[in-house]
């Protein structure tokens, strides 16, 4: 396979963005002034991580990329000693992240890593449940610490107790420290994120590999179905909405809850009602922690939580109240899902001819089932709960910067790198202490305006799916999972990109996420706040879906997404509802418009558009 040379791509700077490199960490650049590094970059294979980053990264949002760059690499290369791979290297072009697994090339070194890997990874696999319980404690403690973290305002005069208690520290110092603590908690959270994840992926990937050798035609969605958990905590936020819908009817306040699409109006009405106040108590219980669920993937600052956008869960509760009034069941068909999972597993198992193969199947299935719940559950803790709280803590930092004139708007903070924010805080704190105007009040707003323009230009740019030199084999499990998604999908996406006029496209290809064929009217929802427009039986077309979209699935006939694989939220939920899903089409929200007639085939992964 032939791909462009990274440095050639890098050299074609988009006019008006010259100097964009300063928006990101310097080690993310492809270089030409360092012969050794340049040669390494040319020989390596880099692919665009479109699964995680469908959009160019804002400078601040790069934090999670740096965090997993470190975490994944260290676990592979320094902690578990995965024999044939080191870490995953990162680069960036025009705000888009490229990653490259780094192999161990020396056979002797691979061999010498084997016993360590067997001992270390073996310890995790053997003690998985105990260690995972420990993980949960560590993770919850980290989130509690984050929630408690205070970002002090800078007072004109410090409190008297600073003197009385001889504290010896100022709010200025506390603010600088709190910011460091905030960032460190974020990095720590991502240390935990990868503690189990790659081992989980490895167990899944090699189970998938084995089953595909036995059954070359088995769709990955069926393999995922065999190992998927049923009581996954990612379903809990949606379950809470159902409970609240039932509770509203029980208390007789369902009329009040459905009286408006605006949460503030509904809340006011409920507060004025005795039973309504009772319902609000139930709500506040449900909110902690479940309303920390993000309305997006949680990866980006613009993914707000239910707590931030109460209209989103409100629409969900209203949908369920509606269903209950119609006499429809809103319970998850858990028994049916379990029975179907077990039937499918047993039938495939029965089709295995060789006794040793059947034993191997049982062994790998057992292992995958042990580790897979983590792969699904970590998302709520890290990407949803932690991130939702984190983004808002960052907004508190931004508010302080705004107060001191360094930012024009709170949401401008995302255009700064985390180390630039630290610099700006120093500027603000020293200026506050000294009683002068921060230098940044003149420099940052101008720079931020320019960066906004750069971001817009980056959004127009299409990153090439892969650059550099493709190796023959890839051994890094995380990359395999990603590549499995991107290898095929990028080819399909590229095919769509070649069609000049999106108005002429009549078919999109993605992954069959959940089988079945449905024809119906499209409803494009770019964010979860638009799901209120959905009508019964429509086909939801979305960039991606997350647990906060769950109530929408009670209404729709099928689902089509831009991004996601067979393990994605849309695929899993559609399988439960027994409705077709085509995921990872790359372009659905750009090509399809609300009202178009679609035919969704969740087995073949094809979406036909009637023109």
């Amino acid at each position: 396979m032939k791909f462009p040379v990274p440095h050639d791509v890098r050299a074609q700077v988009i006019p008006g963005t010259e100097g964009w490199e300063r928006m990101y960490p310097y080690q993310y650049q492809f270089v030409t002034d360092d012969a050794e590094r340049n040669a390494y970059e040319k020989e390596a294979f880099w692919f665009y991580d479109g699964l995680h980053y469908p959009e160019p990264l804002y400078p601040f949002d790069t934090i999670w990329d740096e965090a997993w760059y470190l975490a994944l690499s260290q676990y592979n290369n320094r902690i578990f000693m995965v024999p044939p791979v080191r870490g995953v290297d990162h680069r960036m072009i025009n705000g888009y992240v490229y990653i490259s697994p780094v192999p161990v090339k020396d056979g002797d070194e691979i061999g010498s890593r084997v016993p360590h890997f067997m001992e270390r990874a073996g310890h995790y696999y053997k003690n998985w449940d105990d260690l995972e319980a420990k993980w949960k404690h560590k993770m919850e403690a980290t989130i509690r610490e984050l929630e408690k973290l205070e970002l002090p305002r800078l007072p004109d005069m410090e409190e008297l107790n600073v003197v009385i208690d001889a504290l010896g520290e100022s709010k200025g110092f506390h603010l600088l420290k709190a910011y460091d603590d905030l960032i460190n908690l974020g990095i720590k959270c991502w240390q935990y994120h990868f503690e189990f994840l790659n081992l989980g992926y490895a167990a899944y990937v090699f189970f998938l590999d084995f089953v595909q050798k036995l059954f070359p035609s088995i769709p990955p969605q069926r393999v995922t179905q065999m190992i998927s958990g049923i009581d996954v905590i990612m379903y809990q936020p949606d379950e809470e909405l159902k409970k609240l819908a039932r509770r509203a009817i029980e208390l007789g306040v369902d009329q009040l809850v459905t009286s408006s699409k605006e949460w503030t109006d509904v809340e006011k009405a409920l507060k004025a009602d005795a039973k309504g106040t009772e319902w609000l108590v139930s709500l506040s219980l449900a909110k902690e922690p479940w309303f920390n669920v993000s309305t997006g993937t949680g990866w980006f600052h613009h993914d707000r939580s239910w707590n931030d956008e109460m209209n989103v869960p409100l629409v969900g509760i209203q949908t369920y109240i509606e269903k209950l009034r119609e006499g429809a069941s809103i319970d998850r068909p858990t028994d049916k899902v379990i029975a179907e999972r077990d039937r499918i597993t047993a039938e495939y198992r029965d089709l295995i001819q060789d006794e040793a193969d059947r034993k191997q199947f049982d062994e790998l299935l057992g292992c995958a089932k042990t580790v897979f719940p983590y792969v699904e559950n970590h998302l709520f803790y890290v990407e949803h709960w932690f991130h939702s709280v984190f983004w808002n803590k960052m907004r508190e930092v931004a508010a302080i910067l705004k107060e001191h004139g360094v930012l024009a708007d709170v949401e401008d903070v995302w255009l700064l790198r985390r180390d630039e924010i630290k610099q700006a805080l120093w500027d603000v704190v020293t200026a506050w202490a000294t009683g002068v105007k921060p230098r940044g009040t003149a420099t940052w707003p101008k720079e931020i305006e320019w960066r906004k323009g750069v971001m817009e230009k980056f959004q127009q740019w299409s990153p090439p799916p892969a650059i550099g030199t493709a190796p023959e084999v890839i051994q890094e499990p995380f990359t395999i999972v990603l590549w499995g998604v991107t290898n095929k999908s990028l080819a399909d996406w590229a095919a769509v990109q070649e069609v000049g006029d999106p108005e002429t496209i009549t078919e999109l290809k993605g992954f069959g996420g959940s089988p079945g064929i449905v024809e119906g009217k499209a409803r494009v929802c770019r964010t979860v706040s638009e799901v209120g427009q959905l009508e019964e039986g429509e086909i939801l077309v979305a960039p991606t879906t997350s647990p906060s979209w769950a109530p929408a699935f009670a209404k729709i006939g099928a689902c089509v997404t831009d991004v996601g694989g067979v393990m994605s939220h849309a695929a899993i939920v559609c399988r439960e509802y027994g409705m077709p899903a085509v995921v990872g089409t790359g372009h659905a929200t750009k090509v399809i418009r609300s009202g178009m007639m679609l035919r969704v085939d969740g087995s073949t992964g094809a979406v036909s558009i009637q023109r």
Partner: protein
Amino acid sequence: MTAAAEAIQVRPKPTSDAALVWFEECDKHDVERVGGKCSSLGELIHMGVRVPPGFAITTAGCTRFLQDAGILDEIDRLLQGIDAQDIERLEQVSSLVRGMIESRPMAIELQDEIAEAYRKLSVRCCVPAAPVAVRSSATAEDLPGASFAGQQDTYLWIRGADGVLEHVRRCISSLYTARAIAYRIRMGFEHTQVAISVGVQKMANAYTAGVMFTLHPGNGDRSVIVIDSNFGFGESVVSGEVTPDHFVVNKVTLDIMERTISQKEVCCTVDLKTQRCVTLPVPAERQNVQSLIDDEISELAWMGKQIEKHYGRPMDVEWALDKDLPAGGNIFILQARPETVWSDKAATSTSGEARSAMDFILAGLLSGRRLS
């Protein structure tokens, strides 16, 4: 009581040397008596699969005809000391023997029995002179040789007792193609000991027909069912005259994983004027139309799954969809035989010896995954 039920009930259990048996009187243990095809049809009927009705002229019946007509003795004489390499001589003898079989008088009792069974079959199907398919059904001992012949000796859309009788003889004579004779010489089979049976089966008035494998013929994957279909009788698919529509169905979940709609230029059907089976061009507007709709694909695959389960091994199935019957009851199985290409391969182990998950993961990591 329906005519069909009556036909089953009033017949006494056939004796072991009966010349004729109905399919439903056979099962899988009757290969020696009625050959593989007909015994399998009986077996399918017993397991509740929709099979067009019909009867078999047993090996005993066929042998009796050859004996009564004095053909067996002549065969013995003609084939004495013949050389398997001498193709010219083989051809000559074959055409002599086949000429005898196709022309010498058949005992009137046997003729009557066949004609009467055919009449009853027509009554059962509520059609005057029911159209039938006449096929040879080989016994196990001579399977490879006879299956050469058998493939060629299928006569479609035969109507009337005379036609049936004529084509029964043709099927019997397929035992004596030059190729079959040479095969037996090489294998050391006695020419007079080999036997053949002939099946006479009501023909489905096929809207669409084809074949179905309960594994992937390309890679042996047992988790799928593969269906090839074209408009008309299945012969256009079996013979490879057209590129048929191609469907891959998940055997476990019965959802359709792959659909390939081909341009189907011709199909095999009946010319209503001449009442003969002919190959006709498919009208241009139908050539690219899916010849089997999704519900039918799933139902057919479900039937395939049941048949495989019953036999306990992957199967190769011929099927047809009758255009005269309503949906939900119009798919017929015309034939089912064990798949041999993949099934007979010794089960090769993917894993060698089962390993711990940890060892397996390590091995997987070390070998990596190929990029393509």
